[in-house]
């Protein structure tokens, strides 16, 4: 079942929101507020989570608050990869949570935390253990990023290869399972009190294999996404029906993100949309299709079988 809807992803990161086009995030705030209201109307009681901040920046939340967005969401979220990209240390996780706690009373979810096996598997094992020690019990939800390595032939589309330099390649090794399907050593230390964040590409052939691993690990909480841009592709509903049915046995946080190029002020998935209401309509459609109580019952019946 869907346990939460997440509005956008990393809104303070150029990889997901073009804030050169919307420098004060006014358009973002208006768009997200409309969508939050639409979700609350369509499914009262279904929590709305603000897209995870990356980098973790309390002043950004204050900015969104000044635009009235914070009253419309139920919780906030943060992302951190201190061994790979951030400029703060792994042990500072509690301080980073504290910085956000200081500016909001909403619950804080850590919706992406991970460590690449770029140079050595042992680094990930260490980071996983340490992250579990620091964050479980500290926040309501922790989603480890990720279950599966990115296949080397795929590109990490939402990243800026040039600006990341060699650290770009770290993206490919964030999984607990290698691209060839073999598990890494960290898998043995995974505590299912954490959730898993796993993206699926459109018609991703790894879906069933991923679900099998999630079951084997005893995972309950899964975060994934439904791409607004992909929703405009032919056969979109068919694919997402399949994705959501496969994930129905889990408590799923669904992230809604990515402007369809045809609907952006600029034809790019990070562009503010031409018509902000359209994102709310999309959110409502997703909630009606996948998170309505009737649907949930059907899904639970299927899960029980």
């Amino acid at each position, binding site marked *: 079942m869907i346990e939460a809807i997440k509005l956008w992803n990393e809104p303070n990161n150029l990889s997901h929101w073009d804030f050169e086009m919307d420098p004060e995030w006014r358009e973002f705030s208006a768009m997200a507020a409309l969508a939050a209201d639409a979700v609350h109307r369509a499914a009262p009681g279904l929590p709305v989570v603000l897209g995870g901040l990356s980098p973790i920046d309390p002043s950004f939340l204050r900015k969104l608050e000044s635009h009235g967005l914070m009253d419309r969401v139920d919780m906030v979220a943060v992302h951190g990869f*201190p*061994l*790979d*990209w*951030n*400029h703060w*240390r*792994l*042990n500072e996780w509690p301080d980073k949570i504290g910085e956000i706690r200081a500016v909001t009373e909403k619950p804080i979810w850590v919706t992406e935390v991970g460590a690449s*096996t*770029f*140079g*050595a*598997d*042992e*680094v990930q094992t*260490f*980071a996983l253990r*340490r992250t579990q020690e620091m964050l479980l019990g500290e926040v309501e939800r922790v989603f480890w990023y990720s279950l599966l390595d990115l296949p080397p032939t795929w590109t990490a589309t939402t990243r*800026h290869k*040039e*600006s*990341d*330099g*060699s*650290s*770009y*390649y770290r993206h490919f090794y964030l999984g607990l399972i290698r691209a060839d399907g073999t598990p890494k050593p960290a898998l043995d230390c995974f505590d299912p009190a954490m959730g898993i964040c796993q993206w699926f590409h459109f018609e991703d052939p790894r879906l069933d294999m991923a679900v099998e691993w999630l079951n084997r690990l005893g995972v309950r909480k899964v975060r994934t996404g439904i791409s607004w841009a992909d929703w405009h592709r032919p056969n979109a509903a068919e694919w997402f029906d399949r994705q959501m049915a496969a994930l129905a046995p889990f408590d799923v946080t669904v992230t809604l993100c990515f402007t369809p190029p045809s609907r952006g002020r600029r034809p790019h998935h990070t562009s503010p949309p031409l018509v902000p209401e359209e994102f709310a309509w999309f959110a409502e459609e997703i909630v009606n299709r996948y998170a309505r109580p009737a649907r949930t019952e059907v899904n639970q019946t299927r899960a029980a079988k």
Partner: protein
Amino acid sequence: MIEAVMFWNEPNNRSHWDFDADPEWRLFAQMVAQAARRVKEENPSIRRVLGGISPVDPVFMAHLRNLGALDDMDAVAIHGFPIDWNHWPLDEWPERVREIEEAAERPVWVSEVGVSSFGAEQVQEFGLRRTAELLLGRVERIHWYSLFDLPKSWPATSKNPEAEGSAYYRHFYMGLIREDGTPKRALRLLSELTPELGLCQWFHFEDPRLEAAADWMENFGVRRLRTGLSWADSLRPGALEWFDRQMEAVAPYNTTVTFGYTPESLGVLPYHTSPPRDLSDYAEFCAAMVRRYARPAAVASVREYAGPAVAA
């Protein structure tokens, strides 16, 4: 004492050699071959090592061998930072060494290997321990990079921030000792790994950390050190005075001294990665430094001074 001279540093890396100005490395090969001959004339007992290549690239090494760059070299060297920048895993170190041994037909030294404590000191500690397991006993020399963190106010001049993105900041945390002078976790391992494990430590011109470095090395049983004398700095006022101080401070160690950086005034192009206009200028600089700091007689007296630690 100076046990080895290293000719240039990372010749296949733009941060040290402008290979747009020398696309086939022909100038480079001639320059180092000539310098190796001159050093051999000055003091044949000093080992001559080609500057560490980074990335580790057997094709590049074979190319230099074909150009005759290795003719008077006793060994070649490689640099690797697999946890931070390279695109190969830490556990592949032995394979990297073997590839270069085959390409160079000479012993391979690992003259820079290190791990940044960028996100967690435990990562560095793990990296040091594993590196030692993989390389000690496998290669003649390992120089751990580095003793000190780079002060944050100093730019990592030889690197390229734009091309490296956030990976650039890893440069600042390569030391076993923090900028404020306090030790990191991995330093505890050092005395278990010395004297076989050496250190690589650069000193800036008139570096105020020189004496502190000597104290730390003494306390942790370091015997093997790699450092450098900058050809570019040699033209600055007071250069010899500073070089004398530096070489005196490192005299108790088996030191590998690296000669690199073209003086702006002597380059084909006015920067330190440029090929020099006259290749023999570099050879003469190397010869002069060896004459000054590694005369056969001086070597003998340093050996006595260093005492049983060196004999062992």
